């Protein structure tokens, strides 16, 4: 049988179906408008919810950083219809030409993705604009928040917000071009906690851009997670007073609660108003601040490395006592041919040595630490052994390495050990005579102010400290950060600290002490002045202290650059701040006034580099 003809059945069926399909497609795609209307009624839009960034509070719950709402105007070019450019330009107060450029740029970027056409419109301005937005299809406002700093203090410590750079966008998929990110300070260090997590919503909008509800009951949405608040140990009153006292001066103040390691105030001067780096004015102001010759953006409290000067004698004393190379009644004559000194009676105890800050005394102390006669054949090898033991002990004071504080970009100073000098001079090519200036905290020893404040806390606690930290708790005020509950014990027995504290008390309280200006009626302040040698001009003054002696509540380091001796400016500044913190009062307004009005930066210009006295024997 021949079924040849049956193939025409299939051919006919194929042609018939094809014809039916094409007709049907023509009907629904070209003739029937029902489907287009239905499509228009369900255009969806992806809306990004930026969660509010967390607030930052001081130790008494007062706001240091908060948020203020602003709006970005977004445009989706493909949805733009019958756009009256001139009217719109007038509405948002942008020149017509500029607006045209931005619209072109938006189209170039993508016609179906939203672009920003005007950034950071304040809430009041947006209220006026938003009532007209319905006549501009394809344009809508997206809210975001800017930072605001009610007390306008702590710029360095708090950091600021900036747009992410391309490198960060490439490295971290969370960020998209145009997002903001914390830069510097707490904003950078706690970026992830503060920012929370961005959410995405898909909503249905009609042709007039009105939101008609969530798309598929929010099946594809992700909820935004609010940013967490930071509860710091900062005392706002003290921070504010500290910044006032330091104005017109270069330097820094770091105050700690010795019992917890919480930072009470962190001042770097010259400071800047944090509001300068918010929003549209940020870029302009940043440039100005960056070009300023007095470097207001430089955070001296964390990044300026100075030789510790005489304050290092306290550490030398502790190391020597603990090693047993001296006792509390060891006496050395003030032999100025070894190293220069001022006129004072001979120190017959460690307390007196501290009180008089006798340079030759500590020359001998460091000599005994370094030359232990552990290796009798070579004084070079002997020095390496002695210095190695010394380095280990000094590092236990939190020196020579970056503090574990919760702030980015800080320096760690330098504690020169045998390895350091071997690199510098070569092994077996240095001995005590090469490095003796370390004995009085000069030479290669470097510290940053935060380390010096921590040193004060160690003296106050008699041998232990918690890592200094700004933020006590993240999120809930009581959720104290666990990593700052780890106690560090210093390599020096507590009994030696009694003598150090007594020496420090005398520095402030007794005649002949260098810091009598730090005295406060009714509070026993312990302190030590220091001078950081400055090859470029007047030396930098340091004052390290804690109070009250009986039950220390505050430990502090004050640096005033180019001000000569520590007692002149640094000690009274510390004194005023201690009184403010402990009693919440200021009993010497005339002192405060004088300190605030003193302008050391203006005087700086007249300083000459003073000739250096030769210090070799």
């Amino acid at each position, binding site marked *: 049988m021949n*079924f040849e003809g049956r193939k025409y059945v299939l051919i006919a069926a*194929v042609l018939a179906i094809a014809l039916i*399909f094409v007709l049907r*497609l023509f009907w629904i795609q070209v003739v029937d408008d029902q489907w287009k209307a239905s499509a228009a009624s369900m255009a969806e839009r992806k809306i990004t919810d930026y969660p509010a960034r967390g607030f930052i509070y001081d130790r008494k719950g007062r706001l240091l950083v908060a948020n203020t709402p602003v709006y970005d105007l977004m445009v989706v070019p493909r949805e733009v219809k019958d756009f009256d450019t001139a009217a719109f330009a007038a509405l948002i107060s942008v020149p017509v030409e500029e607006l045209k450029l931005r619209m072109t740029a938006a189209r170039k970027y*993508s016609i*179906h993705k939203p672009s920003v056409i005007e950034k950071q419109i304040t809430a009041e301005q947006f209220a006026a604009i938003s009532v007209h937005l319905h006549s501009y299809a394809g344009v809508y406002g997206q809210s975001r928040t800017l930072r605001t700093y009610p007390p306008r203090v702590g710029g360095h410590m708090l950091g600021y917000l900036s747009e992410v750079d391309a490198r960060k966008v490439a490295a971290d998929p969370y960020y998209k071009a145009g997002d903001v990110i914390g830069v510097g300070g707490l904003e950078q260090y706690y970026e992830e906690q503060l920012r929370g997590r961005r959410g995405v919503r898909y909503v249905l909008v009609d042709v007039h851009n009105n939101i008609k509800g969530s798309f598929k009951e929010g099946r594809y949405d992700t909820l935004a997670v609010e940013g967490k608040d930071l509860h710091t140990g900062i005392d706002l009153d003290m921070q504010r007073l500290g910044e006032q006292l330091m104005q017109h001066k270069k330097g820094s103040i770091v105050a700690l609660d010795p019992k917890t390691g919480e930072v009470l105030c962190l001042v770097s001067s010259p400071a800047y108003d944090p509001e300068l780096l918010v929003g549209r004015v940020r870029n302009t102001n940043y440039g100005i601040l960056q070009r300023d010759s007095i470097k207001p953006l430089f955070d001296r409290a964390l990044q300026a490395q100075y030789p510790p000067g005489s304050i290092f004698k306290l550490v030398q004393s502790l190391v020597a006592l603990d090693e047993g190379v001296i006792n509390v009644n060891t006496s050395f004559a003030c032999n100025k041919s070894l190293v220069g000194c001022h006129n004072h009676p001979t120190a017959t105890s460690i307390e007196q040595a501290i009180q008089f800050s006798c340079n030759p005394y500590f020359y001998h102390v460091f000599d005994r630490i370094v030359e232990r006669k552990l290796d009798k054949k070579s004084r070079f090898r002997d020095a390496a052994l002695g210095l190695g033991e010394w380095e280990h002990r000094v590092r236990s004071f939190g020196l020579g390495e970056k503090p574990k504080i919760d702030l980015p970009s800080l320096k760690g100073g330098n504690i020169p050990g045998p390895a350091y000098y071997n690199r510098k001079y070569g092994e077996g090519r240095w001995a005590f005579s090469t490095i003796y200036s370390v004995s009085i905290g000069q030479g290669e020893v470097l510290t940053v102010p935060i380390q010096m404040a921590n040193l004060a806390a160690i003296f106050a606690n008699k041998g232990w400290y918690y890592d200094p930290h700004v933020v006590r708790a993240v999120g809930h005020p009581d959720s104290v950060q666990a990593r700052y509950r780890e106690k560090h014990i210093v390599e020096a027995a507590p009994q030696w600290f009694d003598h150090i504290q007594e020496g420090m008390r005398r520095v402030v309280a007794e005649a002949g002490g260098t810091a009598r200006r730090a005295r406060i009626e009714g509070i026993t302040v312990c302190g030590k002045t220091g001078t950081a040698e400055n090859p470029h001009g007047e030396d930098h003054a340091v004052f390290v202290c804690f109070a009250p002696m009986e039950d220390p509540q505050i430990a502090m380091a004050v640096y005033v650059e180019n001000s000569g001796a520590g007692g002149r400016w640094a000690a009274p500044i510390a004194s005023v701040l201690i009184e403010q913190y402990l009693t919440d009062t200021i009993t010497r307004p005339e002192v405060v006034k004088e300190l605030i009005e003193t302008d050391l930066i203006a005087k700086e210009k007249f300083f000459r580099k003073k000739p250096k006295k030769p210090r070799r024997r």
Partner: protein
Amino acid sequence: MSARENVAANLDRPLLVMYLVLLFAGWANIYSAAYDPDHAGIFDLDKEYGKQAVWMAISLTLGSAILLVRGHLFRDWANGIYAVVIALLALVLLIGKEVNGAKAWFGVGSFGIQPAEFAKYATALALTRYLSGLKALIDFRSRVISTAIILFPVALIMLQPDTGTALVSGAFILVLYREGLSGNVLLLAILAAFLSILSLILKESSFDLPFTDRPLSGPLFLLMVIGLIAALAWLVVRNMVIKRLRKRLYGYIVVGVVSSAVFIGGVDYAFEKVLAQHQRDRILVMLGQMEDPQGLGYNVKQSQTAIGSGGFSGKGYLDGTLTKFKYVPMQSTDFIFCTVGEEWGFLGTAAVVILFTVLILRIIQISDRQRSRFTRIYAYCVASIFFLHLMINVGMTIGLAPVIGIPLPFFSYGGSSMIGFTLLLGTLIRLDAERLSQLR
């Protein structure tokens, strides 16, 4: 080597070109359907288009390899391939990965293999081999055997269960018809379909019995109408037909009425007891018996909206919005045609339909020019399979066919189906290339 034996020279160029066009157009379309403007890497293996590119490379390799296989081997291996696929279908029921309630997948990492997609290839080869050994499909025995060849894999696929893929085997009815199955079978099938649709449409309605208040259910009403027609026919036969034919025609009328009654009852029973709820719902939606835009008709409504919104010339490549944000369910698999409709408009959809039509007609034409019975029947199988896929897949996206989950060849996302269709076409091209040299 004579021109007759030069296989490379005899490869069917139009078919090859159409295959490649479909393959690349399909991929470009998947790229658009899964396109995410924020992450636009072409070979991102986390994305469907990235994986599809890998499948495409595999398909092209396999397709080229199959062109090197000597034609007679397909015939020799037909039953072997059939047996292997049957074994795989059985195996997948035991150790397969369950996706969307069907145990249909062998998983290899994030890539999956769906053996059911190879069943049509294996069945086509085995059926062709059996039919090519016969003169014509006229005796009872050969009908039973060829039906068995078709239904064996169908049964295994139904067990997964994957009704859509199983239904594709309906295409082989066209092959059987071409090879001699009585046209009455086709006619009866169409009649049966007509009757079942009618009974289902009337199922939920009820009619008042004329001149009384008694309600009558839909199927009963249908039976009554059939009875009336039968009575009319009886009158016609009695008065207008010569006497010696009357008896036979009375018989036909009785058989017709009885079998109709049984069939309507059977449809009712099958509908209620055999089909699952979602299948019942799909059928009712397609028949217009259920109007529920956010529910079951949702797929079809969304898909037509997406296609309709494309207009005459479409929104432009990558610029479709409805097929981006998952408006259309299964937008890169079963409903991929929506992306074509939205982005390329009527010009695009018509082009795709016409391209497939030309492809099928070309295969029929190739079938015609064979001296080899094997190649001729095989080509016919391929044409029928493509036809069924086109009819059902495109039909469902434009609301002309029930929603049955089968892919649009080369367009729908999925490696198994792409490889399956590549095998079907590759084998045909190789067999056809030998049309002048060997006789099988």
